[in-house]
């Protein structure tokens, strides 16, 4: 691997993305120290501090819903691969059909119709992100199954359990992790979209999307810029991290 090749570039980008995300998470964590007074009120605070305070809600929700979505999607793909050809075809057909629908629209709709709540929102976001994770994880698993070392292991007479333990699980870990990481930016985008429309995270929790939506409605450019920029940076970081894991 040389400095200019795509693998090296992606590795560097993934490392930069991790550094940016860590910095962002740290800034959001210490944001209350930047706010003056004992009671933190986002609307009274400086726009940058307010955006950092909102980041705690957005990032922690993205982590929660993204992990849920990743688990659901990975479970879907693994179950499809394990249950035989017919079930695999049906399950992955369903995932691909769902992928063609605007599932992200269900997030604000569910929040609006069911009256909100973080749990429901997380479940809806997870359900909306799972098909994409399942499709990618399944494609990675299929590619892995076709690799020559598995054929060689079977030809050498190794049992399926040994093949699973020694070859399949160690080699599948990274691609599955990469497929699961895809859920994080999607979860953040879905929550931000719903919050922007006023149908996302409850106001006390705080959200970049909610602040952007409020500022856009009020016509306040100064209040819009910090959360919009932080949201864009976080989305870039999460996407670059997921892509870096894939290659």
């Amino acid at each position, binding site marked *: 691997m040389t400095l200019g090749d795509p693998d090296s570039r992606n590795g560097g980008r993934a490392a930069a993305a991790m550094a940016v995300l860590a910095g962002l998470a740290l800034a959001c964590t210490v944001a209350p120290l930047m706010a003056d007074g004992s009671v933190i009120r986002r609307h009274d605070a400086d726009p940058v501090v307010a955006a950092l305070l909102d980041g705690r809600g957005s990032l922690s929700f993205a982590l929660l819903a993204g992990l849920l979505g990743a688990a659901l999607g990975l479970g879907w793909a693994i179950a499809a691969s394990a249950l035989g050809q017919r079930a695999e075809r049906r399950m992955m057909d369903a995932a691909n059909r769902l*992928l*063609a*629908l*605007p599932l*992200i*629209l269900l997030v*604000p*709709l569910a*929040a*609006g*119709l069911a*009256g909100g709540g973080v749990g429901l929102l997380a479940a809806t976001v997870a359900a909306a992100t799972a098909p994409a994770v399942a499709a990618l994880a399944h494609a990675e698993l299929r590619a892995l199954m076709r690799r020559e070392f598995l054929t060689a292991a079977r030809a050498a007479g190794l049992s399926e359990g040994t093949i699973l333990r020694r070859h399949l699980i160690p080699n599948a870990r990274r691609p599955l992790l990469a497929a699961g990481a895809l859920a994080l*930016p999607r979860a953040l*985008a879905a929550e*931000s*979209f719903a919050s*922007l*429309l*006023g*149908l996302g995270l409850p106001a006390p929790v705080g959200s970049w*999307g909610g602040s*952007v*939506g409020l*500022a*856009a*409605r009020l*016509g*306040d*450019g100064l209040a*819009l810029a910090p959360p*919009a920029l932080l*949201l*864009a*940076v976080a*989305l*870039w970081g*999460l*996407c*670059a991290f997921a892509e870096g894991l894939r290659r």
Partner: protein
Amino acid sequence: MPRYALRRLTEALPATLLPVAAGLALAAMPGPEAGGALGLLVALALTLLLVLPALAVGTAVGALAGAWAGLAPASAAGRLGRLLAAAGPTLPGFLLAAVAALAVRAGASAAPLGWTALALPAACQAARLARPAMEQALGGALGGGALLTAQGFGLDERTVLRGHALPAAIAPALGGFQNAVLAGLVGTVALESLLALPGAGALMIDAARNGSVAGVLPALCGLCGLTAFLTALGAIARDWADNRWADNRGIRR
């Protein structure tokens, strides 16, 4: 109309018409949210008017700029392509819709800003896909063979570029059109809602705010049908690019 376009449209008819028909039927039912089937149809037409030109222009510009970034990265168009490709994930449609809504409240004209906000994510996505495809077509291990063969037949650089490399770069960008459609629709819903435009997205979100399932379902069905229709248009464009490439290479389909 070419045969492949007719085939694609025929294939997409059930996925397009059934949800739209279901939405219209639900909208026509008597109830507190009775805006009527005609109201939904007008709202869907407005949404289509917002999203279709933005997707078409965005994808075309992004694909060309991305292809140029693969061909001449240091040129102005190449720089634009690289910028679009790099900016991809940081510019979701709903965020740009919020910025557009802010600018409209400050006195800017709604239509061009709205279309630009919706076109940018599609352009970023297309540039992201077209750039590596162009690089591969020009010298990569897999796609480069066709170009070397074309040059071996004595075709000049411009013909090779226009007839072989460009379609090879544009085809993947059109292949990713479905994602652009989904992102475009999300941006459109946000734009309609923030600017209070009477589109299907705003109808749906208003109904959700009021907790009305009867108001949400017709618009949601209509938007699903619209998604299928737009995706089919993308598939037709991709088939056109594939056929053009095949014709240039002397392959008959």
